[in-house]
């Protein structure tokens, strides 16, 4: 397939500016770019969701025009989205044939046996083990992704697009996904792999096309390139991730002590089981784990957003009440929540309002029940320039990009007097430049003595920043490792629940 001179304009931005892209049969082609570089727009054009304003698309040498996603499906193009499009109460087999069962010759009824046989055969052939009769909600993220890929294969996809497929996977699951992808490419299918993670692009792809600010800046063969060169192409300059300062001594005084903390999930099943952990002043403790193993509950139980069902959190000698965000804020726990838009900020409100979200109730911002808006706006102006947020105090938060939104959250959390910082996936979805600056801020905070709990599904990030690494599996801490002794393989096994037994349980 090839795309030439694709232009897609939106009222405020040109999302794709004369993008050229070409992927051959039988190759894994990575599409690399920062957030907002135009990857999503391009994949939406390829899958027929958007129509380009200019440019041509050819599939197998023939020019095509997609008016709707079904046209792209008919041309054999299939996409696996980051957020799976599965019916959670249906079985694996049912999902695989969903929307396609007419083609199996039975317009109304689905023969479950036959469908299950087909799906099982496919899953064996591509080495993607799934339980065909299991319902989707019973499966892990990795298994759900396999179902999505099976769906594509069942429909005879010739071109498969995967949008950040490893975001929810353990290192082992990623490796086995890569094997499957190679198998598919080996049969002459085209795999387009969208990512902003350099390591995995290097590991899996044959060629890489880099997008920057809506333009294609080049296509290189993976064999002839290096992560360094890719990063430069992607950002347009050299990137330096601040190395973790080895010299700065971590104090031995625990600031936050968590003991046998338990909490329930939103559907009232145990999600956090008897977690013990302490974080010292100036220390970054990373919490690794596959998404959905209690990370969210851990962050929320500490910060009081979620009631705990047992155990305690003690900060600077004060034992916190369960379920009191107000008290947690008062003792100096800052919180960068996983869900930025909607929890970290109120999206409809202005930047200045979001910057005073936690400090509005104390003087000098509040006097006799009245809010001093002038003062709040002036302060917002200062923070906006200090943290280089692109916007004015009056800009509504929902209009900000992910990176700027995160800067608003950080500006608010770091400008308050804080002892402890709970950072949940602080760089998820951010581009390289924004990631660099967020990590820099976390390191600065640690250097100034803040105890940081870094909860992240990005293992590279945890390894790059943490002094100690705790692994969370099914709500339990299954091990705590010193950074110097941590190995990716071991952490990966622990994340999958097969690592060394816990001494905490």
């Amino acid at each position, binding site marked *: 397939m090839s795309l030439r001179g694709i232009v897609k304009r*939106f009222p*405020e931005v040109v999302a794709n500016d004369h993008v050229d892209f070409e992927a051959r049969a039988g190759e894994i082609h990575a599409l690399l770019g920062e957030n907002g570089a135009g990857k999503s727009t391009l994949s939406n054009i390829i899958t027929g969701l958007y129509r380009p304003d200019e440019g041509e698309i050819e599939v197998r040498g023939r020019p095509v025009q997609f008016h709707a996603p079904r046209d792209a499906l008919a041309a054999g193009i299939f996409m696996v989205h980051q957020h799976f499009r599965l019916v959670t109460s249906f079985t694996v087999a049912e999902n695989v044939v969903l929307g396609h069962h007419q083609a199996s010759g039975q317009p109304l009824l689905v023969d479950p046996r036959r469908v299950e046989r087909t799906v099982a055969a496919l899953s064996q052939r591509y080495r993607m083990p799934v339980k065909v009769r299991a319902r989707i909600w019973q499966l892990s993220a990795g298994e759900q992704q396999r179902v999505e890929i099976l769906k594509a294969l069942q429909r005879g996809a010739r071109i498969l697009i995967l949008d950040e497929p490893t975001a929810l996977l353990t290192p082992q699951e990623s490796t086995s996904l890569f094997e499957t992808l190679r198998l598919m490419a080996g049969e002459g299918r085209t795999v387009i792999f969208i990512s902003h993670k350099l390591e995995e692009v290097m590991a899996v792809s044959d060629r890489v096309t880099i997008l920057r600010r809506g333009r294609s800046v080049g296509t290189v063969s993976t064999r002839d390139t290096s992560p360094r060169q890719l990063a430069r192409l992607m950002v347009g300059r050299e990137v330096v991730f601040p190395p973790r300062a080895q010299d700065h001594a971590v104090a031995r005084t625990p600031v936050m002590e968590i003991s046998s903390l338990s909490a329930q999930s939103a559907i009232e099943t145990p999600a956090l089981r008897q977690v013990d952990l302490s974080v010292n002043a100036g220390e970054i403790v990373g919490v690794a784990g596959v998404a959905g193993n209690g990370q969210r509950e851990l962050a929320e139980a500490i910060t009081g957003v979620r009631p705990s069902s047992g155990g305690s959190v003690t900060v600077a000698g004060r034992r916190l009440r369960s379920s009191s965000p107000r008290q947690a804020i008062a003792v100096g726990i800052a919180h960068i929540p996983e869900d930025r838009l*909607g929890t*970290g900020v*109120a999206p*409809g*409100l202005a930047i200045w309002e979001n910057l005073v979200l936690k400090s509005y109730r104390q003087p000098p911002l509040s006097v006799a*029940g009245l809010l001093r808006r002038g003062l709040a706006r002036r302060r917002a102006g200062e923070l906006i320039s200090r943290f280089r947020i692109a916007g004015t105090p009056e800009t509504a938060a929902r209009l900000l990009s992910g990176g700027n939104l995160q800067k608003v959250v950080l500006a608010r959390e770091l400008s308050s007097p804080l002892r402890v910082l709970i950072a949940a996936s602080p760089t998820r979805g951010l581009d390289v430049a924004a990631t660099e600056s967020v990590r820099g801020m976390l390191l600065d905070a640690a250097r100034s003595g803040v105890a940081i709990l870094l909860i992240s599904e990005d293992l590279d990030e945890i390894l790059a920043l943490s002094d100690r690494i705790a692994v969370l599996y099914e709500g339990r801490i299954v091990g705590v490792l010193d950074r110097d002794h941590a190995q990716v393989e071991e952490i990966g096994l622990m994340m999958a629940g097969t690592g060394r037994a816990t001494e905490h349980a």
Partner: protein
Amino acid sequence: MSLRIERRLSIPGWLPVAVPVGSVILVLTGHDPVATDRRLLERGFFASGAISGTLVTATPLLLTALAAAAAFRMQVWNIGAEGQLYLGAVGASGAGIALHALPGPLIIAAMVVAGILAGAAWGAIPGILRAAFRTNEIITSLMLNYVAGLFITYLIYDSHSYWRDLSTFTARVFPQGKYLADAASWPRFDLLGMMIPFGFLLGILAAALVWLTATATRFGFEMRVIGDSPNAARYAGMRVRRRIVTVMAMAGGLAGLGGASEVGDFRHVLDPRGIQQAGFGYAGIVVAALARLNPFAVIVVAVLLGGLANAGYSLQGPDFPAGLVGTLQGLILFFALGGEMLVRYRIRWRGPQTAAPAPAPVAVAEAGS
């Protein structure tokens, strides 16, 4: 072909469609549309004494609309202004009856306070239910309207309550409430020939207070955050559930004040039939929506709709059935609300061949409400 609705980029002048459509109906039923429309305007606003009559309807509308708007701003859906108004009337008339011997200003002050408190207590019920049991306040506040309606009917018709007049034989056979002392009648102010009810002035004051609370206070800030994102509010340490109860009580108090004004300004008795017939609580929701929840716009819209209703009373007669009045009023409301949507959105026909420009980003074009 696809029919789509998108946000408009610019606001066109909205042309009232209600008048021509209404004219067609008038012609079909054998009435002169021009004369009818002129009569409508005169009776509502321009004839001598018309504004005074209009304000009689506008006063409760203003307060129930504020009750809806104050809660809606926080995404708390108070549909219970109707019942809160009844309870306000119960509270105010009770205070008026009990304190009949006191000097007028004291009775009136007591009636205002009692009306607000009774409405606030009634309004707080759905708030507490939502905070404690996560019930849906739309359902509970709506259901409580019926409870409140039956309650006031019970007070006058089905019991020998404190509110019922049992002093004469006729009153025992034909149930009615105790009339208040003359001193308990709320004052009216003459402004260029318009009689302004005291309740209307209180309503304007209340509108200003609602606006001040929303914009300048800590509580108003919390209301905005909770309305926009309850998760963010909780995360920021706001006591979301308490605030929901507070705002429901506040809304109930506003509607309760409307009920007090019904008794003190106009009826001087607890009259279950009359007060239930008007449906001020529900009309108040329409007023609040048309005013886009802006407290000052609520004043204007309440007067406009009050005028419409007032003109309706004087239009209807042997040659002009009440149903036709209702039809005309309904048309005006329908097109005003429809036009409100068209001001913000536009409808486009899109053929399969022409590549449509991308829709305006919804977020940017919102005028804010």
